[in-house]
């Protein structure tokens, strides 16, 4: 699929779906458009979804719209091809939520699950005190 791949357009769209919050820039202003393109190139499905969304947005018109107008254009893409839009959005979210500055703002630990893992208090059998009183109720054959 050929792509209407204008980085300004993609950045502007990213800023609408993940807008600035507190002192954090929107996803587009954070420079994530290039990351979205790079990661999408690695998977045909991602690339097709990105292409579908970009091809449905008109560069000149979209960039000249105000915020509400841009949201409307994005909603039109969402309605016309929900599967492609959802996949594109999922990729965008996954990339946004791996950024250290986003983790910092959320108070999220921000590290990969392994190798550190987490700690938990050990199993405590006393929690079974109530359910242990119940008579067996499995259906006899």
């Amino acid at each position: 699929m050929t792509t209407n791949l204008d980085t300004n357009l993609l950045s502007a769209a990213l800023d609408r779906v993940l807008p600035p919050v507190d002192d954090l820039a929107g996803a587009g202003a954070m420079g994530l458009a290039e990351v979205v393109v790079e990661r999408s190139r690695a998977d045909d499905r991602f690339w097709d979804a990105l292409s579908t969304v970009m091809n449905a947005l008109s560069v000149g018109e979209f960039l000249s719209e105000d915020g509400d107008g841009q949201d409307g254009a994005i909603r039109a893409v969402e309605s016309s091809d929900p599967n492609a839009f959802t996949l594109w959005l999922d990729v965008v979210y996954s990339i946004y939520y791996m950024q250290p500055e986003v983790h910092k703002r959320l108070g999220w630990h921000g590290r990969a699950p392994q190798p550190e893992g987490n700690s938990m208090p050990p199993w405590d059998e006393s929690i079974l005190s109530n359910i242990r009183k119940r008579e067996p109720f499995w259906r006899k054959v």
Partner: protein
Amino acid sequence: MTTDHNTDRIADVLIIGAGASGAAVAASLAEAVFDVVCIEQGHWQDASKFPTTEPDYELRRMSSWSINPNKRKLPEDYPVNVNDSAIEPVMFNGVGGSTILWAAHTPRLHPSDFKVKTLDGVADDWPISYEDLEPWYDLNDHVMGCAGIAGDPANPPRSPRQMPPVPLGNDGEMLAGAFDRLGWHWWPSDNYVNTTRYGEGRDACNFCGHNMMGCYQRAKSSTDLNYWPRAIDQGAELVTGARVREITTDSAGKATGVNYLDREGNDQHRQARAVVVAANGVGTPRMLLMSASEKHPNGLANSSGMVGKNLMFHVYAGVTGVFPDHEEPWVGPAANMIMSQEFYETDSDRGFLRGYSYQTGRGQGPGSVARGANVPWGADHHKQLERRLGNTVGLGAIGDDLPEEHNTVTLDDRLVDSSGLPAPKITYRVSKNSRALLDHSLVQGQKLLKEAGAEEVDVNRFSREAGWHLMGTARMGDDPERSVVDSNGQSHDIDNLFIVDGSVFVTGGAVNPTPTIQAIALRTADYIATHRQDLKA
């Protein structure tokens, strides 16, 4: 690790597929001094390469580490046509099979699941009972290593578990309290996850929360870590990166081995005195149908016409509670910590037959939370994300999916795998009974979460990408006209052909099937070892 390539020798038993059941059969028969060879289209996995050590793990789970072969698209995967299916099958192809990516939640079927026709007047009875299978359930628990605790009032008594249960954590304790207050059943789940050191070189879980992308810690049990090392130690040969094209037969109709494509794509033939198919509930009917010949025009072992019919998944729906003051619910293995079987058995007042289990889950990173329900893009995104991140607890319902002949696995007319072999096509629709029991589960699930203190509950009416459990497509039975294999997994048509995966299930119950699949596989292996010495050179 690919051992011996003496392709001229005649093996006693050739196994197709190195997953949950193929591994169990290989170890059991190798220990019984059978000459065993296994052909597996995938490869060994290197735990250090699992994506949970990388910050982009949530993105990789959507692509190269997806549970869905149509998304993962590795050369060893085969595509599946799901255009006419309400559920997409998910699986993993490699040594260990889907136990590489599973949650390792390991309940057992109930005694009533084996007698559904007798008790509820629908589907069919199994030709075996829970009691028939129990010794092999216990044996499998020992090999795989089960964390849990005996005494569950919803199930028959069972032997002591190998390890204590997975800790419940804040979220589990909160839900347990709600179940108690409603007077509903709950019990710590059985899981094949180490809570202490167990098995060769396998430590306890470090509660990373994401073991469904492979367990870096090797605390989650998978058959590449236990059954396969045992099998290979006993002389079994495991050929990886090799794709079986067909099971071959002689003029008498007996299985003689397989034709397969080796790692380089070259045609090869391996001879065997018996063939065991362990390729899962989609791959096995595909294999039998691909093995059609002049003598078996409708596919191998298919005189009944039942191969590929009666496909069962389990149906899934779920509710997620938002608990604003909750802390760290992502801590703990993704495997289920609590199971409730309050609504497992048939109650005619509920408006459906059979029932469902509740499972609880963990392990949601911010990307996954963002992709979930009720987190919109745009101006309200950050508020809703923050409300949910670290503050949600999920309750999933796994529903009994009764067999129906119109739910099928067939060969697709056009779609092929990377070797040019026909891909499977799934035709499946959700029955009224399944929909009714899921609707019931959503109402009751919301009640439970509200009791637990949820301020808001997100509802997922149906999970499409949840076809983990592939069952029923070569079912067992006493009647050769209505079933594919007998109670020992032996084909009615071909006495040296056996099937040991979820294909042989007659009904599916409302629990994860792997312990049952493995118990059946071990039972079939024992049958071969004790009654089919004629298969040994």
